[in-house]
């Protein structure tokens, strides 16, 4: 809806003959853009958009139109019609191609680690006596690496593996098919669990072999239809869940998607009250593996965030913008001065 209104309004701006109406349509476009900002949860920007564009810019334009009314012959086209249609059309084609062709789902840095990075990871692992995990690293490659990966990758891996080893030892008995998944397979679990701190959250990718074995070895906890629908409610952070299986740890659950793959790992008992499984309160611990990163990081509040950014990271551009605005005021005054 908004998009359609926006595009229609924009076309109107450039095609309608009456300039004043064009200006009104422009206001419409501004408002649709503000609406889009709201939808993209950029409320602050939406307000700014309304204030500056609808409030100030549009008024300015209307004033300019009024002032120059006598000479308005409407919104006439010039001699450059043909190239002016062809070139934007070409550009549009190129842009749409790029938009569709680019694999946006792969977050930047989530694609396969470069050869050099892999070599480095391998070296780090070798140094720590974790050479066996190399294959997992290469096959998983766990996507992108944290910004400090050069220093941190080995440490992350080590910490994660230590943690998982302890958990695995502790909960071995709880694993119903501990015979099937022997110690060697524990290593596989660990490989599967090579989890990197990535983009503000832990992203894990399961080793396919392990996932298969796990699926064979475990049985789903029965779920009622109500629960399934509650799980997949539109505002739920998990979607497309059809069954729940116990993980190696007692306090974790795996959620299995309709394609039969493990999709989410959740922690029951954290009283955030989003979901309820068998009367238990469940919160989502990890975000979807192999899924579009949706939603924003909890730590960043938008409004305060922008303020923080302005006075911390972007002080200089902010000042430059301020000076620019000042210069603009003076410039506009000088240009329009009555001689």
């Amino acid at each position, binding site marked *: 809806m908004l998009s359609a209104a926006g595009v229609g309004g924009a076309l109107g701006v450039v095609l309608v003959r009456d300039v004043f109406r064009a200006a009104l349509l422009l206001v419409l476009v501004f408002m649709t853009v503000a609406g889009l900002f709201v939808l993209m949860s950029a409320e602050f920007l939406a307000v700014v958009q309304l204030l500056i564009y609808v409030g100030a810019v549009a008024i300015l334009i209307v004033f300019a139109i009024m002032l120059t009314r006598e000479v308005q012959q409407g919104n006439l086209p*010039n001699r*450059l019609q043909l*190239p*002016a249609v062809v*070139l*934007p059309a*070409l*550009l549009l084609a*190129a842009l749409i191609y790029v938009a569709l062709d680019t694999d946006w789902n792969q977050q930047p840095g989530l694609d396969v680690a470069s050869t050099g990075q892999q070599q480095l990871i391998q070296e780090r692992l070798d140094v720590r006596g974790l050479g066996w995990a190399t294959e997992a690293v290469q096959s998983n490659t766990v996507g992108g690496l944290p910004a400090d990966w050069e220093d941190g990758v080995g440490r992350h891996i080590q910490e994660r593996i230590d943690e998982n080893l302890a958990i695995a030892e502790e909960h071995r008995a709880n694993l119903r098919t501990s015979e099937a998944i022997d110690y060697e397979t524990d290593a596989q679990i660990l490989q599967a669990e090579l989890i990197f701190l990535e983009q503000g959250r832990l992203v894990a990718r399961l080793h396919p072999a392990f996932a298969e074995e796990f699926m064979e070895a475990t049985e789903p906890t029965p779920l009622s239809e109500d629960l399934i629908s509650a799980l997949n409610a539109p505002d739920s952070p998990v979607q497309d869940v059809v069954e729940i299986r116990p993980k190696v740890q007692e306090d974790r659950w795996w959620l299995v998607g309709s394609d039969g793959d493990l999709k989410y790992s959740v922690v029951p008992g954290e009283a955030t009250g989003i979901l309820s499984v068998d009367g238990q309160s469940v919160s989502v611990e990890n975000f979807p593996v192999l899924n579009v990163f949706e939603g924003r990081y909890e730590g960043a509040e938008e409004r305060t965030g922008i303020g923080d950014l302005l006075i911390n990271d972007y002080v200089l551009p902010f000042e430059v913008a301020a000076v620019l605005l000042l210069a603009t005021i003076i410039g506009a005054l000088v240009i329009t001065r009555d001689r």
Partner: protein
Amino acid sequence: MIQEAAVWAIFLLPLGSFVAIALVIRPFLNRFSGLAALTTITTIGASFALSLVALGSVIDNGEVLFAPHEWLSLGALQINLGIILDPLTSIMLVVVTGVSLMVQVYSLGYMRGDPGFARYYALMSLFTASMIGLVIASNVVQLYVFWELVGVCSYLLIGFWFTRPAAAAAAKKAFVVTRIGDLGFLIAILYLFFNTAAFAENGLNALEIADISAGVQLGLLGGTALTLMVMGIFAGAMGKSAQFPLHIWLPDAMEGPTPVSSLIHAATMVAAGVFLIARFFPVVEASVHAMQIIALVGAITAIFAATMGLVMNDIKRVLAYSTISQLGYMVAALGVGAYVPAIFHLFTHAFFKALLFMGAGSVNHASGTFDMRYMGGLRKYMPWTYMLVLIGSLSLAGIFPLSGFWSKDEILAHAWGGGSTVDTVVFWLLFAAVPMTAFYIFRMVFMTFHGEFRGGVEAEEQDAGIPSHQGEHKVHLAESPWVMVLPMGLLAVASVVAGGLVNPVVDILGIPAHWFADFLGGKSDIILSLAGLSLAVAVLGIGTAVFLFLVPNLLPGPLGAPFRLAHHLLSRKYYMDELLEGGVTRRGFYGVGGGSLDWMDRKIIDNFAETIGWSSMNFGRVVALLQTGQAQGYVLIVTLGAIVIGGVFFAFMWT
């Protein structure tokens, strides 16, 4: 224990004085230029006091370590700003600030009434500050910055009276010649830059001076590369410390005001070179070949300059060659591994050479000239100056028990005890320079202070054919004002006691034997028989001077015919200036290098440039057709360009 801030203050005080004078006093308060002198003397005085505190702190606690501050960091390369406060630095600090303080006080009298009075003090402050910065620098880059600053200041001060062509030329010469040496130093630093990674692997910073020494001990640098690097460092020292063949700038540097010469020769510019080698001594020591070269260059310089000093008629030039010669001693001493004697000689030499220069300035103040042929008999008019200069001269000549005797004989003893061929050669060269030193300095004393007064600047101008102005008295034969005599007196005291008391042979007055050497962490001794011998030849030199200049007063050509050729050769400074300027610079550099460049410039570059010009002109004509003045047309073209770029990008992506 001294605070780091206090050490920085030693450096920052004179710097602040420079800033205050340059930015406040000179532009706004130039009428009260006394303020400039007051500022400089106060700040340098405070620096001197702090230097003494620093020295005391080092004496009590040994080397004081300060963590360096990170200045900038580029990958593995990290450049720090820091302070080294080891015995060497603390001694240099005291020498630099002390001599500088004396010079500033002296300048009050010498420079009085000069229109550039405030500028003079500003530059002197900066000069002192840069030398202090050089001395405390813990990092090669930091050191190099101050190294060049010292060079710039000396340029500005030598050319202080820049309206005189000779002064301007001398300043340029000093700057260019020292730059030649600096290039070597720079190359050495760049070599260190290249080795940053190797140092970093061992947890060292290739640019920290202390780490460089450690790196050499670990074997990170070695062999020919080390020798070449040391030679680069030495090239820098050669330029600054006026070692053969880069010594030619120093005599010409006499064109600057005399106190400047005093400062340059005693404490700052020329000392920087010796200091540099001393600072890198652990590195230098690791290269035997470099050490040999350094020793030989120093020894050759010592004898070479001494011979030229024999015949100069300009009092300051005599002293200049004397400085070169004495620097030769120091460098040779470093070359034979006599670290402590070299620093010791630098220490004592600073006092008596500053004293001698001040004496020359004082004499000039009275007679108006620097040419000794027009002086004479000044003893009667300036008894104090005479006395003080005599002390300085005796010290320079190495007469027991003045300071020059101790330090010089330690060098000789060390060279004698070295044993290798190079050491022996160096010893004999240095030894031969001893009587010459005594001779030329007493020739200077006798020509200046004894006999009858020969007219001063007025006679000089008459001889040169310059019409003398009526009623103008440039010669006023009288003792200099007390502000000039007092610093000379203090320096004379230092010249007398600095040698025997600072590094005595036996325990004396509660000072343990070889205190200076122990403080610096080395050893030094004199061989009594050798000292006696050198004392004897020095007295012989003085005796010759007495015989030639005092008794029969044979002037100006005292030497018989057989010596005329030698005299001519020496007074033309072995034709070194002519060789370097005419042969190397003019014919080689300008002739061959410049000629070929000129050809290239005209035939290749010009044609190339003209072709470019021609083609762009015609291209411009074509493009001008697109310039319609229609903004929308431009937008169109920009869009087209964007699409073309995108298209090219896609095309490459698909292939």
